[in-house]
């Protein structure tokens, strides 16, 4: 070094950088990805690959050619968005639909607001909701019939899957939440429904495939959650608040009328609540920055999810609930933190 380097203090920096954080998110999403590919075969892999590649490509094109700046894809945030978007899609999603989802996520929800750190709404969720509203049929087709390389054709996995080896698919093609919603609306009670369909908690925990790719295995999501906590990427406040709120809300309803309401454990494990609470609600940019803000945010998501699940039209409400609370995040960020020392009068 021929010339001295001069800069203001501090002169050292922690090893943290944005890329590392995104890399940790990708690793945390790996268990869910692997489980979904295992149960749903190569179609799942196709959806995931198209989603990730699409998001990265669109971000690169927009930044390079529309905004005329240096490309930003190396910070891996587009990869994370791609994975989360894929986790929100059913396995039979056609590739063109996935690409449209990528355009909605990256192009509309992220880039128009100014790119990384400036978006108001969670990009993957915007993509998912956009697709849900635009292509309702494809987005609620959970059947695996056209899925290639399905595991139930493999000898050894027949034993693994046990009695439910036929994987519920052809029969109803609906998720547990969907079954409940429809059943209750048709006047059936919970007992009847549980007799007709086998809602095994074990299956939900370990690898139930009816639903989008991310909803498959609660255990895979919990593994990812544990990894993120250990690596100090996220704080447990938001996910725990969401889950506790949902448990309380559904618990109260279930205690009031068990025949018309599913029990809390069912609500916690079913649907996209776990992946939503762990991966999507904790997104830095769209969640509040202070502990009180995070608490209100978590409670809001929990309450809205349950409201939509119980009284709304859609069987699953997590996506809408998170997007709704994202809109409130700037307001929650205006809550001033508790000052270092409570002042009586300022000098």
């Amino acid at each position: 070094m021929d010339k001295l380097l001069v800069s203001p203090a501090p002169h050292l920096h922690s090893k943290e950088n944005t890329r590392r954080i995104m890399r940790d998110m990708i690793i945390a999403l790996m268990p869910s990805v692997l489980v979904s590919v295992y149960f749903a075969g190569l179609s799942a892999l196709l959806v995931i690959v198209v989603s990730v590649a699409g998001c990265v490509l669109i971000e690169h094109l927009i930044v390079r050619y529309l905004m005329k700046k240096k490309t930003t894809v190396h910070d891996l945030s587009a990869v994370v968005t791609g994975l989360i978007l894929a986790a929100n899609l059913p396995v039979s999603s056609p590739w063109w639909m996935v690409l449209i989802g990528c355009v909605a996520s990256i192009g509309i929800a992220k880039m128009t607001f100014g790119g990384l750190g400036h978006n108001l709404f969670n990009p993957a969720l915007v993509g998912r909701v956009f697709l849900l509203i635009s292509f309702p049929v494809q987005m609620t087709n959970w059947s695996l019939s056209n899925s290639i390389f399905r595991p139930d054709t493999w000898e050894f996995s027949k034993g693994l899957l046990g009695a439910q080896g036929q994987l519920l698919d052809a029969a109803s093609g609906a998720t547990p939440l969907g079954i409940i919603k429809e059943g209750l609306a048709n006047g059936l009670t919970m007992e009847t429904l549980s007799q007709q369909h086998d809602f095994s908690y074990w299956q939900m925990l370990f690898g139930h495939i009816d639903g989008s790719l991310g909803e498959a295995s609660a255990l895979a999501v919990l593994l990812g959650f544990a990894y993120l906590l250990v690596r100090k990427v996220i704080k447990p406040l938001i996910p725990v608040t969401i889950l506790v709120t949902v448990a309380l809300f559904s618990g109260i309803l279930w205690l009031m009328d068990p025949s018309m309401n599913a029990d809390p454990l069912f609500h916690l494990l079913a649907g996209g609540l776990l992946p939503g609470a762990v991966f999507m609600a904790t997104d830095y940019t769209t969640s509040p920055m202070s502990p009180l803000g995070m608490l209100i945010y978590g409670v809001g998501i929990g309450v809205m999810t349950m409201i939509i699940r119980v009284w709304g039209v859609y069987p699953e409400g997590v996506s809408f609930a998170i997007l709704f609370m994202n809109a409130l995040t700037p307001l929650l960020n205006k809550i001033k933190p508790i000052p270092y020392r409570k002042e009586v009068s300022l000098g």
Partner: protein
Amino acid sequence: MSKTFSIGGIHPDDCKFSKDYPIENFPIPKRVFISMNQHLGMPAVPVVKKGDAVKVGQLIAEPAGFVSAPIHASVSGTVSDVAPYPDFLGKKVLTIVIDTAGDQWEEGIDCSPGVRHEITVTPEEIFKKISASGIVGLGGASFPTHVKLTPLEGMKPEYLILNGAECEPYLTSDYRLMIEHGQEVLIGGELMRRALGEDVNGIIGIEDNKPRAIKLMRELTSKSLQWKVVPLKKRYPQGGEKQLIDALLRRRVASFALPISTGAIVQNVGTAFAVYEAVQKNKPLISKVLTVSSSDLSVQKNYRFRVGTPIADILSLAGAMGKDGNLSPQFAKVVNGGPMMGKPVSNLEAPVMKSTSGLLLFTEEETKRKEPGECIRCARCFEACPMRLQPYLLYQLALAGRTRELEENRVFDCIECGCCLYTCPAHLPLLDQIRLARNASLKNKRKK
């Protein structure tokens, strides 16, 4: 059970590579450059001129105003110049240059090596002695000590805290001082305690990565009723005044208030040592201990240097300079102080100051800043800030120049510790802009 402060903070590696290197006396330099800006407050005014002969410990500059301190010659010889010279940051300050000749001390200064235990002075005499000896806060802030010890209207001191935390990575000068001169440090602390009032309690706070120092100081204070030693958790910025008071007394200092408003006065252990020398040995502040260190372990030293020694001389003897007289090629930056709050050195010919506690050497890889990215709103800076400020917000407000909102968000509370910049994953220059805005606001406030 180690205590600690309750808000924010970070955990950098403490890198105390030089902790087992005993203090060496740095040889007296051929020339010293003593600048008049050795302390916070008004620069001192020279009382010698070119050609005067001086002895070690002789007064060469008087304080100018209340918040100021006298300066004494650190070597004996002849004054060769009194003119503006560039300091280590390249800014010109009035400097007294002395060409060294021998090592003659002023009469009355006790140069004997033994420790003088008996305290035979009254509190008023202690105070006067500190004031006349040019002692300033040697933790890095250089605040004139006698001003800090001056009683203020309505604020009675209850505690005197000796800061042995040394929370900055790499620095080991305070640690070595406590191990090798623990008795003197304690006597100095006791002198200050008496100057404040007999009912004042003394606490010595030491981070728990220095078990030897804790053990030694505990032994020395075992029979004392007024002093106790409290271990502190190894964290940054544990050594900050406000954080120490929070950790040890669970009291918080209000915005714009002085720490004395909570009943506590904090002094560095190096300052306590200087007080001992001033009162017991009649020796004014003319030397201090600093650490020279680098992460590649090639340079590890703790030196007792004379004020005004050129940085290049110290680095050269420590082995950090190459044969051509420039800095060794693997080092890219020299820092005066600790890595978190120390100032960068742009001029190696410049001298060290009264409160310099370290000269650290960093390679380009360790210290070169990365390209800043976008703020991802991760709130790590908010979690790390020990004053519970919102650095991400203050940064944006500082860039936009919104002074009123900056003041509303308590930018004055910023202690410039650097925790926010350290943890930001996007490598945003948070503290640079906040510091600028804060200093501009303070200047405006003072003008009114």
